[in-house]
């Protein structure tokens, strides 16, 4: 069971102070700590667990500059066998479609049974890369995956729906599954793993090597272009009602009536 897992090297923004950069299309990245995208972390763990149970290999792929090697090394340290980094200055500005095209070129000739991605990326949150990649590959995809049960060339998959519901679907392999957090408990990076990771090679491929033209990637090859990124202005929507409890209760009643809520 060969598994490919697509991982993204993203800035940790949950607790950082975010500033918009001079282009107004991105955030200021200097000073931010980068790590593997949280959803991809679970996808990687799932890939390694599949390998441990069913044999085969795990190949981790990312798109990004040299810094992204640290995310690939982490994948290698956690049990991936191969790592590929796709990089080219022309990739800058790619939307999910362009990213999927790049990944498609890189994986289409690799042997694999399952391709995993995170359900979304913590930085841009499009949730689209996996489905588009599956479409380009001409294979099935399942999103928001919470459980995977392999059975021959079929896979039974639980999807997370809103309101605590889950849906179980069955798809034929090969397939693309986009992984939701919580599907497993990602293991710690081990020191032995780090040792092994440092001895493995990261394969680096550029635009020409994967066989795409300049116009097929970056902004030129994208369907979506970022016009502007900004911090939404703070607006005051709340209304404070003064007075003693009776007066306030009366005012609330007036508002409810005026808006036709009762």
């Amino acid at each position, binding site marked *: 069971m060969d598994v490919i897992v697509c991982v993204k090297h993203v800035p940790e923004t949950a607790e950082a102070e975010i500033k918009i950069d001079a282009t107004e299309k991105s955030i200021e990245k200097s000073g931010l700590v980068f790590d593997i995208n949280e959803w991809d972390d679970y996808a990687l763990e799932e890939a390694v667990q599949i390998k441990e149970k069913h044999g085969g290999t795990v190949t981790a792929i990312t798109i990004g500059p040299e810094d992204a*090697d*640290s995310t690939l*090394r*982490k994948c290698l*340290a956690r049990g991936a066998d191969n790592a590929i980094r796709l990089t080219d200055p022309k990739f800058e500005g790619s939307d999910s479609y362009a990213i999927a095209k790049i990944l498609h070129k890189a994986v289409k000739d690799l042997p694999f049974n399952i391709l995993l991605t995170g359900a979304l990326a913590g930085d841009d949150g499009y949730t689209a890369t996996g489905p588009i990649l599956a479409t380009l590959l001409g294979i099935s995809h399942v999103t928001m995956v919470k459980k995977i049960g392999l059975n021959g060339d079929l896979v039974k998959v639980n999807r997370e729906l809103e309101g605590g519901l889950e849906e179980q679907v069955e798809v034929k392999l090969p397939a693309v599954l986009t992984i939701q957090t919580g599907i497993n408990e990602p293991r*710690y*990076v*081990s*020191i*032995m*793993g*780090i*040792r092994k*990771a*440092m001895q493995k090679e990261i394969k680096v491929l550029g635009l020409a090597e994967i066989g795409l033209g300049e116009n097929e990637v970056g902004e030129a090859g994208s369907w979506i272009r970022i016009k502007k990124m900004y911090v939404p202005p703070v607006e005051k929507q709340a209304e404070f009602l003064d007075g003693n409890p009776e007066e306030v209760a009366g005012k609330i009643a007036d508002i409810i009536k005026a808006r036709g809520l009762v």
Partner: protein
Amino acid sequence: MTNEQKMIVQAASEIAQDFQPDYWRKKDKNHEYPVDFWKTLVEAGFVGIVIPEEYGGSEMGMFEMMLAMETLTSESCGLAGMWFLCLTSVFGGLSIVKHGNDQQKEKYLPQIAKGMEFCLALTEPDAGTNTLNTQTAAVRSGDEFVINGRKTFISGADRAKGMLLVTRTTPLEETSKRTFGLSLFLVDLPNPAVEVNPIEKHGINYSKTCDVFITDLKVPKENILGVEEKGWHLVLDTLNPERMSFSAAAGGIGLLAIRTAVDYANQRKVFGVPIGTHQAIQFPLAEAKAKIEAARLLNYQASWLYDKGQPCGAKANMAKVIAVEAGIQGVYHSMQTLGGYGYAVEYDIERWWREVNVIRLAPVTHQMALAFIGEHVLGLPKSY
């Protein structure tokens, strides 16, 4: 740092995230051994950092071990981030890596990498800091030794399956040179001839430090670590990295407390502005931070020399002297920054205060570290 070293820091940091101060508060309060923390360190290979690959480790050095200890300590674990690794990986692992023969390595190292706990029995009630005055006697009887004596303050002896025991095979009075006549033994525990009684103590209550009574303990001669009678020089290869470990912890605890104090000082408003605005709050924390960073560099140097097999005692002792002062200063002023809350258990500073203060007393007292520097670095007469 190499990419590999950066990854070790990152890996340690991820573990630290799952063992936050509230975990240690509970363990300390309940005098509970942190089983899951130790299991995590073992499974993630931290215990095997200094153990050769052929014995199931990762064959790295004390420098890498210190990076792990510093990160665990400073990011959330306090002293515990160093303590357990020191007891097992330094006292057991490193000592055997350095001086064990093939049989000893085969017997112990793979087990240590898998989490077999160790302890070091050096200190004695009547010798104290004066190790050469060790009274625990190992007397040859055929192919074995019979050992009698008493050790005190032996950390982890209650759980350890292995003990590095410092003895005299020739009494002090009968040696030509005071540093001769000490021998090191690897002792398997528990053993009916070894009685272990925990000593109630000020902090680090998630681990026990014990009195150890040894009565007619029979140990085969094969269990001597390194060369018989030369134990003093050999044990320095354990005591120096022990110092480095404790220096790493002193700085780490200081940094942890300072970070807690900074977060607090940025929030807490008393006279209209955050208290961190006041230089009386800022400057002592800034000073401690600067000193801790300087101590770290000296400690890195010490471990680098150790890994290269070069003399490291001078750096290790100097690093220890400044690391402990800086660490204590950091925690002291952090407590001051939190005001009354600094004294409340819930805010953790009081625990780190109890922890950091042990580093003035152990593994070597502050005075003895200074005495070493006076004599061996400055060239002054021996003062003790």
